[in-house]
């Protein structure tokens, strides 16, 4: 195969992986937004907590846990951290104005980042797994196994979530809350309880993203900040409250970013994704998918 084609395909695969990663982060953010009408500015920091949890689990003295078990543990830990945050900080402000909520979640973000700074310092921590250096080669195209894992996992999670909100009592209640909160009270759906469950799921998804993606990067206290903003951009692009729309917008963002950093400039990739965001909103203020896609 000509080298240009190989490189192009590798960029596309990198873009899809990055997109899948963004999609996983975005999924959680947009679930919380849809159900609780709350923008969680600490979402990326829960991802960061997942990163350090991964780091700790990979460096346990004496025992080497299998990677799949580590992934499950990271998801459980972040879901519990999310649950704790929801109980202590979010629950009391569920019906307050967006300003109060923004300040509260920004506060959580600052607390988590500084806790990480105290506990782990600002030095980047490496979290390689046995898969992050494994490469498979198909017709000259080289793909890291870790990236394949991410792609497959995210598609699986997306389908599982679809099934969950369509076929389970709690999932249906999550959709109900996102569509008509007032009516939920009238039929007896416990809105704060559904919001709590959603927060735990969303945090668990951020943890999953950390367990799958950190092995390709490194773990730092500030690793979540920019990510929150990018996921927020995807949520807005997808049409606020539209989980599927946000999911696909995140993939798009990843693809554009990977292609741009591959062919033009790595340093300016964030400028491009946020530039694209502004541009699309200029043309379609209701987001790419308007109000039609639905949770």
């Amino acid at each position, binding site marked *: 195969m000509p080298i240009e084609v190989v490189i192009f395909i590798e960029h596309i695969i990198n873009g899809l992986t990055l997109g899948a990663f963004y999609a996983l982060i975005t999924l959680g953010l947009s679930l919380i937004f849809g159900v609780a009408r709350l923008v969680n500015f600490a979402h990326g920091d829960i991802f960061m907590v997942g990163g350090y949890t991964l780091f700790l689990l990979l460096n346990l003295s004496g025992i080497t846990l299998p990677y799949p078990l580590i992934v499950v543990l990271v998801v459980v830990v972040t879901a519990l951290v999310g649950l704790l945050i929801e109980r202590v900080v979010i629950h009391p402000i569920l019906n307050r104005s967006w300003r109060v909520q923004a300040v509260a979640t920004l506060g959580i973000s600052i607390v988590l980042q500084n806790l990480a700074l105290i506990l782990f310092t600002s030095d980047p921590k490496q979290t390689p797994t046995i898969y992050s250096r494994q490469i498979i080669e198909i017709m000259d195209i080289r793909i890291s196994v870790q990236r394949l894992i991410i792609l497959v996992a995210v598609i699986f999670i997306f389908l599982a979530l679809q099934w969950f909100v369509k076929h389970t009592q709690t999932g*249906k209640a999550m959709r109900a809350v996102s569509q008509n909160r*007032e*009516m939920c009270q*009238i*039929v007896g*759906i416990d809105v704060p309880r559904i919001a709590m469950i959603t927060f735990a799921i969303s945090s668990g998804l951020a943890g999953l993203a950390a367990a799958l993606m950190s092995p390709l990067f490194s773990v730092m206290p500030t690793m979540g900040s920019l990510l929150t903003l990018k996921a927020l951009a995807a949520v807005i692009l997808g049409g606020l409250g539209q989980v599927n729309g946000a999911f696909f917008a995140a993939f798009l963002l990843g693809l554009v970013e990977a292609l741009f950093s591959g062919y033009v400039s790595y340093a300016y990739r964030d400028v491009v994704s946020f530039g694209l965001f502004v541009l699309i909103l200029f043309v379609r203020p209701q987001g790419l998918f308007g109000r039609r896609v639905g949770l």
Partner: protein
Amino acid sequence: MATDNVILELRNVDAGYGEIEVLRNVSLRVEHGQIVTVIGANGAGKTTLLRTIFGLVKPSRGQILYEGADITGLPTLELLKRGIAFIPGGRSNFPQMTVQENLEMGAYIRKDKRQVMKDIDRLCERFEILRMKRHTPVGNLSGGQQQMVEFAIALMLKPKVLLIDEPTIGLAPLLVDEVFRVIEEINASGTTIVLVEQNARRALEASDYGFVLELGSIRYQGNAEQLKQSEEVYRAYLGER
């Protein structure tokens, strides 16, 4: 009214929103099995009255009794379990969920999920619109059809008392008749109905008893027939004679 047949009673109830007092010293009794209409001008407090009975607004004074028990201040969930349901005015459904799913949400607090599915089947047999649109998102239905779905959502809990707020608002005359036919049918199967309706004449025709709310207080009450014949009520709420 015979006391032992009273299913719902308000005694000297004051209620409102924070500093804003809306209901003042409201006392009323609803007899088991009747259709009772509350009429009144815009802003008189009709919706607030229903929301207070349903526990969404807490009374600042007075008592609410249901089946002889004091239910003042009980949470809505508890009232739902005891057999009070509410159909708010405006669109009160889950627009992106199908008719089937909306009915399932209506039965959210029920534990007998198998029986719920049977009840949904039964309702779909009873109302043709539900059967035809069972797997269509409710937001895609017409206003009248959505109103029928909202009735069905409330019926999922087999309520003993059904509070209905302005069910015919914005509907064509033919559909208004259909809505009243359904209300009478629900009543005939044993459910007591408290109805708020801007179409006072039509509502009184379907009702046994009526209350006129003025500035948050009961101004008149009586049998539907008496109210229709009352000179004052007629002038204020039923148009020129």
